[in-house]
């Protein structure tokens, strides 16, 4: 296993831990996006550019955005009540 691969694995482990450790959901959505980006770099280094491309668009664009929109809706509801 090359140094690059080991580095990518460590970065993914750190980003995953950071996602879980983050308590504020809004920040968590952004950190989860960074975690997804580190995963896509891992996929690319291990020779799966196709999966990496899907991972980038889904984990850094679609998922954080939907989480943020859902949080915006829930947050406003909380203020109403």
């Amino acid at each position, binding site marked *: 296993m090359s140094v690059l*691969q080991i580095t990518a694995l460590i970065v993914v482990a750190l980003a995953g831990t950071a996602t879980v450790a983050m308590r504020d959901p809004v920040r968590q959505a952004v950190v989860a996006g960074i975690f997804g980006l580190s995963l896509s770099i891992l996929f690319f280094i291990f020779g799966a550019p196709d999966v990496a*491309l899907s991972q980038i*668009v889904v984990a850094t664009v679609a998922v954080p955005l*939907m989480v943020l929109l859902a949080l*915006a809706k829930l947050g406003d509801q909380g203020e109403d009540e």
Partner: protein
Amino acid sequence: MSGRARLAMVALAGVALAVVLVVAVIDLPRPDAPPPRSAKLSTSVALHERHVTNIVAGITFDLRGLDTLGEELILFAAAVGVSVLLRAQREDSTMQDAADAAEQRRAQVPASARALGAALAGPIIVFGAYIVAHGQLTPGGGFQGGVILAAALLLVYVAGQVLALPTDSPVDLVEVTEALAAAAYGLVAVGGLIFASAAMTNFVALGVTGHLLSGGTILILEVAVGIEVASALTLILAELLDQALLRST
């Protein structure tokens, strides 16, 4: 349940999960190991019998084409579900309020963000179309390109040009496009039954390997999936944005 009992259960489950993971990973082939026979076989089949250089596209749209049909219908069902659930909660009068609020908020968007969003939207649409159209040649394809196309819409949103969909007509257009793209995949699958031997069998000219117009039905399926994914995501995001705007009025 006491805190200690909970902690013990979590520890037990964690250890069990770790053991299962280690056992599962230990037998995996090393990343630098020679590829298995099935990899060489599917590479050869995709390259010589389907004329595609992106072997992943050859597998997802030919060898496992029926799986991809299922995935496409899952996304279609998800978009329909989101629309039905969210639209049941909204009324026409509040839609106008949301559009007005969006119009007011447009002035608050910084000029730099608007300029950046407007400048990037065009190139990203071109890039998304490129990824969709070259799915049979290079990594990428309908799914990835479709999400990139939908991301271009988000940039338009950031640019503050279209903050709400005040009339129903753009959404109608997206809905119809999505349904047609989902149906196109099904029709290509059925076309194999009619014009060839079995469902999903190629029935159009394969073209020259490495050229843009190659891969037969794979290229058609890539474009259908690209349009389907782009419109499904646009629909879901538009509905969610409408909800967020309605809430803030």
